[in-house]
């Protein structure tokens, strides 16, 4: 007999073939468990990243719970088309990448997971130029599951 779980999986697979809801392919290697430098190189090798005050990154100085750290990223810069958020000490350092079309402004709030105290990096691309900012967050309660 078909178990409920198998039935649901089959149903999900079927609907997947019928209609993919997103167009692009998820970039598996970028979200791999690897050290920060490796992922950073994959993303930005050969690019010049310049520190910028024009990106606002708001995170708590001390995060009580690494399983849910509130984050706000915003910028007044125009023509931003890419956004990357990396948590340096997470097992999978890249936590988010975004593609913005012309009708989008850079204003994003989310709640992220942090395995331990470390730097959070935000990198944006604007007119082909890469800009970065970072902030240190002390994580009170982390652990292997949170990142």
């Amino acid at each position, binding site marked *: 007999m078909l178990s409920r779980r198998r039935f649901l*999986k089959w149903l*999900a*697979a079927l*609907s*997947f073939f019928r209609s*993919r*809801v*997103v*167009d*692009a392919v*998820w*970039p598996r290697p*970028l*979200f791999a468990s690897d050290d920060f430098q490796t992922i950073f190189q994959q993303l930005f090798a050969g690019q010049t990243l310049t520190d910028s005050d024009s990106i606002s990154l708001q995170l708590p100085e001390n995060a009580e719970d690494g*399983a*849910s*750290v509130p984050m706000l990223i915003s910028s007044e810069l125009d023509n931003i088309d890419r956004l990357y958020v990396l*948590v340096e000490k*997470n*097992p*999978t350092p*890249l*936590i*988010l*990448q*975004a*593609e*913005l*079309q*012309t*009708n*989008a*402004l*850079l*204003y*994003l*709030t*989310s*709640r*992220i*997971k942090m395995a331990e105290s470390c730097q959070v990096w935000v990198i944006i691309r604007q007119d082909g130029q890469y800009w970065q900012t970072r902030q240190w967050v002390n994580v009170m309660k982390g652990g*292997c*599951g949170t*990142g």
Partner: protein
Amino acid sequence: MATIKLRSQRYPQYTDLKLLISHVMENGRNRDADGQLITAHFIQQLQISCNGEPVISLDMAGSIARNPFFTLRLKTTRPGDVITVSWQDNQLQHDSLEHIIQ
């Protein structure tokens, strides 16, 4: 079951979208009460479109907190514009929602 809640607010200079998705966002490194690894189950892609045109596409993994909440901002919208939100996870489950700007 509907997994997506969306609220929009138009301001003179921009429109805010507040988005809440019900999802476990398990990264595959947590253990259950019996010490067994919980299977990875997380949203990989989230796409926001306005009148059928993609506006924001997000790629993510298990490092977004459980039940993801996002605020996003669009430059211009008009009442009647249709916002479509779609997500797809690593187990190929997906959901989408259509929302009309007031």
